């Protein structure tokens, strides 16, 4: 666990800072390598703004979810329900009755559903004292069930009257060549970073994840804070749902399938500890980009699924090892 805390010598800069930067540097390195591979294997297609836009767009939805997940995991919890919540939010926001209220109706519903689910999980975990894993697992099942119930298993498309929302996904609504979705992602990530690093809420999140008892003794309302973390994650799911509707012009109970795994993986490979208390948002975002780049790379090279999966496994391992090189100190910790 805390082998690396056995008194370490002073360095010119803080341990944590160095470590985190190093890790992220490592991930940047990994990205660079991937780009290089892309450039070599697909000279024509890969090195185009088109690909860049594509990667960013594909990363945006899961990216927003990952921001929320980062908070939850740093706070010592986990949220398995994100995928199901996205499904429910997209479905609810695209029912006939909701769409009758126009775009505001859709956006509001999606966000409300997300926040609502987050609140329920939060209450169950913080006040109902359920283990985060179980609490959000229950939410996962219920949300999916409700989504199927609402949609009757149908794929609900956005009606013509709300077409304007879907148009946001089209090229003519790009801002200086940047898709609105990417802008939303960027905004969420930046706000998230500020909250995590510059506000008491963010710093207390680290405290709760790192040493719950210490946080409690310091007079922090750990229950309330824990609850808020899941609300935050739910909010991100709500936003992500709107983005997904823009992207697919539809809502189905099959949406967001296994998003939880993707998001958690991105967070962890970004250097956040599953045990909480340590981690960075930059790392998580980089993690998302790595995974999306990989998948784009695969399709561009037209690899068969089997090879893709194999390669993915290998790349994950290599990615982490590259990080290791960059950040020598993480060694002790990660062995647990």
């Amino acid at each position, binding site marked *: *666990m*805390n082998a*690396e*805390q*056995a*008194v*370490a*010598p*002073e360095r010119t800069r*803080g*341990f*944590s*800072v160095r470590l985190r930067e190093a890790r992220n540097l490592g991930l940047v390195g990994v990205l660079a390598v991937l780009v290089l591979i892309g450039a070599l294997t697909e000279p024509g297609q890969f090195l185009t703004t088109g690909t860049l836009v594509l990667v960013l767009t594909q990363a945006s939805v899961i990216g927003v979810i990952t921001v929320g997940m980062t908070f939850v995991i740093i706070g010592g919890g986990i949220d398995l329900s994100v995928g199901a919540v996205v499904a429910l939010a997209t479905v609810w926001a695209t029912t006939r009755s909701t769409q009758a209220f126009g775009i505001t109706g859709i956006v509001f519903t999606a966000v409300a559903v997300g926040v609502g689910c987050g609140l329920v999980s939060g209450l169950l975990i913080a006040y109902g004292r359920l283990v985060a894993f179980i609490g959000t697992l229950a939410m996962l099942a219920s949300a999916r069930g409700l989504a199927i119930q609402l949609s009757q298993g149908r794929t609900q498309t956005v009606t013509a009257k709300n077409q304007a929302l879907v148009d946001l996904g089209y090229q003519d609504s790009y801002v200086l060549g940047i898709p609105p979705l990417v802008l939303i992602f960027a905004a969420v990530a930046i706000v998230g970073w500020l909250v995590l690093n*510059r*506000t*008491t*809420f963010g*710093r*207390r999140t*680290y*405290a709760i*994840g*790192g*040493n719950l*008892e*210490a*946080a*409690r*003794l*310091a*007079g*922090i*309302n750990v229950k309330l804070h824990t609850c808020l973390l899941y609300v935050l994650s739910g909010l991100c799911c709500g936003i992500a749902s709107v983005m997904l509707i823009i992207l697919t012009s539809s809502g189905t109970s099959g949406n967001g399938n296994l998003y939880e795994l993707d998001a958690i993986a991105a967070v962890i490979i970004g250097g956040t500890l599953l045990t909480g*208390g*340590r981690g960075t948002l930059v790392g998580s975002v980089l993690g998302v980009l790595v995974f999306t780049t990989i998948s784009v790379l695969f399709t561009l090279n037209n690899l068969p699924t089997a090879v893709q999966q194999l390669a993915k496994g290998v790349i994950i391992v290599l990615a982490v090892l590259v990080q290791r090189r960059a950040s020598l100190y993480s060694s002790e910790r990660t062995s647990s």
Partner: protein
Amino acid sequence: MTLLEMTGIGKGFPGVRALDDVELSVAEGEVHCLLGQNGAGKSTLIKVLAGAHRPDTGEIRVGGEPVELPNPTAAIRCGIATLYQELDLVDGLSVAENIFLGHEQASAGWVRRAKMRADARNLLDRLGHREIRVDREVGTLSAAGKQIVSLARALSLDARLIVLDEPSAVLASDEVANLFRVIRGLTERGVAVVYISHRLEEIREIGDRVTVLKDGHTVATGLPARTTPTTDLVALMTGRRVEYLFPPRPAEDAFAERPVLLEVENLGVAGEFEDVSFSVREGEIVGLAGLVGSGRSEVLETVYGARKPTTGQVKLAGKPLRRGVTSAVRNGLGLAPEERKSQALLLQESVARNVSLASLRRYAKFGWFNARAETTAVRRHTEALDLRPPDIRRPAGKLSGGNQQKAVLARWLLKGCRVLLLDEPTRGVDVGARAELYRVIRDLADSGVAIVLVSSELPEVLGLADRVLVMREGRVLTQARDLDERAVLDLILEEQERAE
């Protein structure tokens, strides 16, 4: 006038009556000392005062009017700041953030980092620790470093009443001097201090009045700290007369013909310490004296194989020792580490399982475990160390600080090793048990075990060790049998003096 009045406080944990009808009254501007054996209830009492535990019975009055302290926040609002016995800091956060955790310098939720850093800096300087940087991650500090930060944290609340639960346990003498300077500064401003320590000489120096706890009862209150004779205090605490003495040391030449067991040859770890060489003969106790941060723990951890040396080697009975803890233990080395909570104990597991952790093999045939043999053996050793409560089935995390330390020692007594490395073995251990421990350690030595002892309490090192190494900044200054306290202090402080 009296600032704090606690009356009829009672607190029970399932199976234990930790506190029963306890009284405590503290006047403004006084240093009120709490004395008591391990498990007497001191920490529990101050946790009640800090709002960390809810008392079953009793009343608390602050500045005359009765108060409810359902949670830590309430206590902090009442102007009560607490330094807990178990270092309760967040490893992932910086020093400054830890100091101000829960009462951050912030406007509208936004942390004012510059101000927070500056204030943290001031606090640490006040404590005489310029070398601890405010944005260093707390997890990377030594035990002492953490203790200093906790202190700064207690000060940062600028409270009316400051409670310090064994603040000096991990501090070396010079640090303690600093601490006292700070405390005096506080009391002059009318701040009251509740001070818990097992070191009577400290009580004499800083304390005004003493309250003594025994098995959760108040056995004496308001005794004058300076004039009450030691023997009385000890008698009150332990209910028996303990002559606070070190067991006699064998004659100087007693070891001459004994074989050398442990040989450390110019061992070094880059950035921690360098060129440390010494040897321990069978049955000999070698002490390492030095300031906090002089690298003694590192030396022990490196000898033990927990750290990779960059230079030098360790020999056991002439044979070089293979790298790694596993081989070290297999060859009969044992280490009682500095931070029991994080480095030694399985807090959720029973005492029995904690004690037998290093000797599992012995109680197993082909991996098949014989729990009965284990528990009987464990019980033998915990009784020898008089662990309280004597139930070896309760989780180690539930034991009082000092008793946890005993459990760690019992582990190596059970293992029965040839070389025993003790890092702050008496940290948080009470007077009575302490005398016991010294005897146990000496008996071990007499039974042929080679012992290396690190302690921040000079009298302990000097009184117990057959030979003392004095370290400063990762270098060994001298080795000698008979050094007097003054001389050693001059040696290790020299550097500082020149600095100032």
